[in-house]
């Protein structure tokens, strides 16, 4: 057990990949590529308020390769894995530099989820959309309130990230730098991870 865990911390273990591959095939019903509908049909996701955002993240080119912007229709296993690597835990003996890099990558993923049009800025519209989805499952908060919350949060961001602004300035949205700034207390490098072990294929209910 222990050796396996340690290996996984350094690289993705072969076993791990096999497990994920199995899952991939299960989701895509044995096709080479995975489509949006495949993910959307996972029953466990039904209750997740941000399920659309998550699914989009899998088809977002920014999460697949650094330079491009846009959306792909289908992803292969490699891309699937690539997205999931964002959720690998940090190695125990990681250097400060790497830790910072890791932190940025992880936050970038989160940022991309909000920045739907890919222009590098989370605008108020996008943010509202996100908050609305996030709170939608609660079902108890009026839409107006959701907007109000989003607006208030945005104001919060604006006032903390841009303490002093020229009168002519206009806060067009959250940039990635601001995003880093407001989430500086979030311990993302130690919390954003998922245990890819113990893949329980027997209990898995596939959407198909």
């Amino acid at each position, binding site marked *: *057990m222990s050796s396996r*865990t340690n290996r996984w911390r350094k690289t993705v273990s072969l076993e791990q990949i096999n497990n*994920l591959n199995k*899952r991939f095939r*299960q*989701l895509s019903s044995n096709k080479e590529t995975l489509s949006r509908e495949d993910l959307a049909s*996972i029953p*466990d*996701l039904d209750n*997740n308020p*941000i399920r659309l955002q*998550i699914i989009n993240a899998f088809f977002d080119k920014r999460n697949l390769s650094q330079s491009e912007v846009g959306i792909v229709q289908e992803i292969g296993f490699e891309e699937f894995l690539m997205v*999931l690597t964002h*959720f690998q*835990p940090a190695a*125990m003996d990681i250097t400060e530099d790497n830790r910072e890099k890791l932190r940025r990558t992880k936050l970038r993923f*989160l940022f991309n989820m909000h920045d739907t049009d890919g222009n590098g800025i989370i605008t108020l*519209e996008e943010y509202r959309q996100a908050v609305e989805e*996030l*709170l939608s499952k*609660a079902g*108890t*908060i*009026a839409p*107006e*309130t959701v*907007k*109000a*919350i989003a*607006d*208030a*949060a945005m*104001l*919060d*961001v*604006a*006032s*903390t990230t*841009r303490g002093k602004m*020229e*009168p*002519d*300035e*206009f*806060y067009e949205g959250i940039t990635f730098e601001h995003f880093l700034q*407001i*989430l500086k*207390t*979030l311990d*993302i490098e*130690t919390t954003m*991870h*998922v*245990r*890819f*072990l*113990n*893949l*329980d294929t027997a*209990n898995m209910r596939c959407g198909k």
Partner: protein
Amino acid sequence: MSGLWHGKILMLMVVLTVSRHSLAFQARNANPSNQPGTNASTGNGTENTITTLPIVTWKWHHTEGPYLVALWVLVSWICKLEIETHQTRQHSSSLQLSNFVFQLNPALTNVFPESGLLICIGWVLGGIIYGADKVQTFRLQPFTFFYYLLPPIVLDAGYSMPNKQFMGNLGAILVHAVIGTVWNAASLGLGLWGCWLGGAMGHLNTGLLQLLLFGSLIAAVDPVAVIAVFEEVHVNEVLYIIVFGESLLNDGVTVVLFNVFDAFVSLGGPAINAVEIIKGIISFFVVAFGGSLVGIAFGILISLLTRLTKKTPTIEPGFIFVFGYLSYLTAEFLSLSAILSCTFCGVFCQKYVNTNMSEKSVNTVRTTMKVFANGSETVIFVFLGISAIDPSIWVWNTGFILLTLLFIFVFRFMGVFVLTWILNQYRLVPLGLIEQLVMGYGGLRGAVAYGLVFLLDENKYKEKNLMISTTLLVVYFTVMLQGITMKPLVNWLKVKRATTDEAMLAEKIMNRTFDHMLVAIEDISGQIGHNYLWDKWHNFEEKWLFRILMNPTARKSRDYIFNIFHQLNLKDAMSYVQEGERRGSLAFVRNDSKADVDFNKQFDTDFTDMPDIMGPDHIPVPFVLRDSVPSVSLNMHEQDQKMRESEDFNAHHLLQQHLYKGRKQRHTYSRKQPVVNRDEDEVQEIFQRTMRSRLESFKSAKMGVAQPKKITKHSKKDQTEKMSNGKPADDSKIHSYGDEDFEFSEGDSAGDAAGGSFPMAAYKGGAGIVNPAYMAEMDSNEPMPPMPQIPPWLAEAGEDSSNVAPSQRAQLRLPWTPTNLRRLAPLRLSTHSNDSFLLADSPATQEGTEPQPPLPLQDGRGRGTHM
């Protein structure tokens, strides 16, 4: 408030009851007059035979017990006060309140943990008592400790437990609490036994079982000491929760080990066979799980009960305490783990109770809980110090004492390292070496061990006094030495600290997103991980527990994000009123409203300053609107009347009303099932209030406003800027910024301007104080066309504005502005001009012409009447 008082009275009652039992016993052979805190004269009991009616009789003996308890609590708390004062004021040379008590060196208070200092003070007090009495009159009685002092601390710990972290690290906590404690107990007992056999302690009348018993009572990390020390250090959450959780949960183990070995000692060595040992193991599970279940059962009871208590808000907080205490006592009389029971009761009920109860009660519970917990903690430490000054309990055995200290220290570290190593094989984020060091070092022993050792039977345990003195020394050693060095150690090791600054709303929202994201990824990759389980539990909770345990209407406002938003709003509303008060504008209101003369004008000005300011660049749109509103004057008339009715408004009243209104709304929001529209209104209003205050803080930072692309605006901008420079008073500054704020919104299309102009006007009024100079200036270099369109009455009023006391404006402002800010808010940030928000509002703006110009007082009073 009343709730708070209730709580205090309850506590007083508890304290008083303590005295009957404990102090009556203590004071039996003691002369109370020598007590340092009191210096009260001895009671001259009342005469039995009276010859005449006594006007006053001396009844010291009747009140002696409670009186002493109250005085001791007072003395302990004053000690605490002393320490705190020194800690906070160490750099000021101001007169120190209690100079005469102890002159503590500020540097000392910085280095020492509070608990250590309290023990020191206890020594001093104990020395005084002993010096006077030649016998130690007061000491911490186990009964007092376990039944009155410990429960509040445990209940508070459970009630304010960060649930998610607790559950997330439950595995690690349990491993340390169960296996770690057993290991500590066994290793210490066996180690001492080995040394005893080896002759390192000279002649001692003891044996393996007795030493194991001693090991088990001193093995457990003490919650009181851990909380006291770790709260000052602020280590990161994971570390804190592991040490803290361990200290709470190991109680089950301690109780079992203590009872089992106590029984074994009575049985005697030969009678112990495998059956007895298996019984012991079973009893562990019964005690631990039974205790937890009792706690959860009481948690459910509290939750159910608080569903019904909204009619009696004053007693509401009391239920929490009574039930918490009952859960403790119930577990105790069932010989289950009382600490576990009380902890789980708090952990389980906190969420439901907090939503079920009114906000006021929640605050009361929190405050009172802290009063109780802090109070007993203080008393415990002071008495730990006092109890030591008693030669009759001190037996010195170098070998035994030093070896105990050594073993405790060494075995603790060994246990932590080994257990953490095992845990790290399974943890995704392993605990580093530094964390392990702090965990090992945080193994503080405290009053629980002391209380247990006092319970030992002197006839069975010949070396009881040695055990007591060793326990005391261990407690002093860990609390003082380790407590003192904890902070430097944490600094030196650069342990990750907890972030103390308050999280922003945006951050909270992001955290929530983050949680859902992890769950989703687990779902997609087909994992059954911690997030998955947490999510499943959540769904279960949502489906069943909330329905059963939560007030149906309270469920509505339960959402975490909404609560934070709500809290922020509350804070904003408060600071908003405070700000108004500080500026003194409310003070004026009292006089002016009594005068009752200027209302009309005052209203006029409110309207005038709008065109004045908007005029320059808001070309006709607002005026179209304005003109299309023939009812403006009528409107004003109406308002005028309303205001006259309310002439006895004074500042205080207004303030009250404003504050109360906020709360009131919240109540209706969370309690009654409100009509949807109304509901929205209320939320809106909360929001507007927030926005308003936020905008002000924005303004002061000169938060960016206008959209650069609008060129037409710039001329105006310059003007504004000039004006703001020219303005002398800071009041006016706010004003001008308000102006800018508006410009920002005006960047939208003309269609919006119609919607936007109005709010702006309102906001203007809201910004309050108009500087006459400003107005004049505006008028003088007025190049813009709309000016002439100003209706005569408005223009006239504009001139009058200089005569109007700012406060009147302020009076209007309070209830007034928020209603309109709603429209302003989205405009300010939105890049898209026609969002639904606005669209929804604009018709209201237009058709709302007759009653539209927001009726401040009417509004306020309307609520006032049914409050």
